[in-house]
């Protein structure tokens, strides 16, 4: 195929669909009990150097418990999918966990401002970056989910975002129109937080799906963290609501309040005080180290972190904020 132009930055993962097929051919499909702890899933599915994707939208429906565990396990040299990553990105930068990055939205926390530490890390030159957009990165996952090696979008054309990407400009064989072709992306592992899952991994989330439908299907290994486990009967009672079927899933971790300090739609709002504390303390690297020790490295489990952040009383406040019963 004639390539009219192409981005200069590396494609970190092999877009060969037949290699992915070989992997998926061997991936176990039986409906078995997949419950694990966050420690176990990091140990088993997130080794040093693997390429990681995180579900949700930065500080909304994120699998915080597993990300903390990645830091505690001192994981290094990961590849990371920077698809509207905000607090998740801030966390992984705090642990200097990754050294290569597909970037669509990074270092910022949307209306909250920019993370000083994430900026330091990204300005250090220690991280190899390839540029994308939110849609083109979602389209890379969609192509992988479709079992093909590329997808096409009309974004990026003509810009430096394209130049610093790994995309190529091609022509439509029917119309001659130009498109940006983007390579399929099969992350080694993805972690997605949901409202409900059964022990086999059948998962339900409420509200927006962001890019999680595509991420769940593209990832070679998939870890689900769930606000609560439900019976398989409950799943089968309303199959229309299932977003992720069991055969995509490798592990299920039950984590109530698992998206804290992020927002979990219909359950609890984000803890803006705590997120602001991060941004503030990051300005001083020394203080930031102590802060990380207190909230992450020095705690043994996610529940302990929740306690240190204010425990049930704080969580009840966030629940009130979320449900807007008075509105």
């Amino acid at each position, binding site marked *: 195929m004639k390539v009219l132009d192409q981005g200069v930055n590396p494609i970190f993962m092999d877009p060969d669909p037949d290699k992915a097929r070989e992997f998926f051919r061997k991936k176990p499909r039986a409906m078995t009990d997949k419950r694990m702890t966050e420690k176990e899933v990091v140990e088993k599915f997130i080794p040093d150097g693997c390429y990681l994707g995180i579900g949700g939208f930065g500080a*909304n429906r994120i699998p915080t418990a597993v990300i903390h565990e990645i830091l505690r396990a001192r994981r290094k040299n990961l590849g990371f999918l920077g698809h509207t990553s905000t607090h998740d990105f801030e966390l992984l930068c705090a642990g200097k966990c990754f050294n290569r990055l597909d970037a669509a*939205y990074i270092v910022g926390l949307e209306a909250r401002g920019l993370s000083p530490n994430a900026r330091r890390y990204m300005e250090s030159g220690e991280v190899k970056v390839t540029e994308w957009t939110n849609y083109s990165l979602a389209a890379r996952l969609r192509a992988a989910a479709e079992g093909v090696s590329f997808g096409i979008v009309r974004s990026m054309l003509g810009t*430096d975002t394209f130049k610093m990407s790994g995309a190529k400009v091609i022509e439509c064989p029917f119309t001659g129109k130009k498109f940006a072709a983007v390579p399929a992306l099969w992350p080694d592992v993805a972690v997605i937080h949901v409202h409900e899952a059964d022990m086999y991994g059948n998962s339900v989330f409420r*509200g*927006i799906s962001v890019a999680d439908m595509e991420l769940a299907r593209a990832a070679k290994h998939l870890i689900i963290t769930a606000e609560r486990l439900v019976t398989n009967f409950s799943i089968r009672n309303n199959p229309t609501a299932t977003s992720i079927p069991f055969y995509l899933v490798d592990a299920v971790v039950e984590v109530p309040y698992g998206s804290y300090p992020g927002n979990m739609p219909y359950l609890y709002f984000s803890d803006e005080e705590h997120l602001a504390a991060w941004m503030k303390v990051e300005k001083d690297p020394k203080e930031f180290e102590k802060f990380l020790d207190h909230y992450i490295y020095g705690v043994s489990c996610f529940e302990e972190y929740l306690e240190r952040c204010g425990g049930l009383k704080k969580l009840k406040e966030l629940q009130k904020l979320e449900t807007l019963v008075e509105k």
Partner: protein
Amino acid sequence: MALEYNMMEMMICVASRYLEDGKTVAVGTGAPCAAAMLSQKTQSPNLIILFEAGGVAPMLPQMPISVGDSRTFFRAVMAAGMIEMMTTCSRGQVDYAFLGGAQIDKFGNINSTVVGDYYKPKVRFPGSGGANDFASLCWRTMIMTVHSKSRFVEKCEFVTSPGFLTGAGAREEAGLPEGGPYKIVTDLAVMGFDEKTKAMMVESLHPGIEVEKVQAETGFKLIVPQKVERTAPPTDKELRILREEVDPLKLVIGRA
């Protein structure tokens, strides 16, 4: 006597007037969202607000903090996903999108990625997010930003999101669909783009602002047509709705 207002209130009120009734607008958090909400409550009750992460036509109870937080689909008609929203843009069903950025150049290109060398940047910004997608796929890109020489540059150091690229014909040549920057609303003026050259042009000066001031705060030569409009100041009604209904906590309008 008319109510006083700050520059953020000015920008939001002015931007809100460009959003036609019955059209769709993709918004981010902050000022763009405030402008869209204000427009709904004044001239465009049937304006449809969309969020890139999946929220469609919510009954926004307050300003979202994130374009993916639960406010963005509070009592929405649909809670979809990002591919749904971006393909809706790609199909041609999204009329307006709002962008911001660190730099904007005379063809309306935007930099929100890096200042300095890409591989070892002086400042690293968030990158495109959905901005490049919106600027590529929506019909009319709206930009709201404070007017200063460091922001309005001859040429962006890094073009994150396309305006008219290098000028007339460049979007078409690159393969982008029809579209491009529509209005740039700043604290000083409203800029549009010259039909022929696609270069930035002053369209309307805010109250008390003269064209020299705008040019002085712009790092390239602006086109000044023979007739430049005078921006109508925010009305009392606009200001009251903005303050009481749209942003009572002053999350955005308190920032000026």
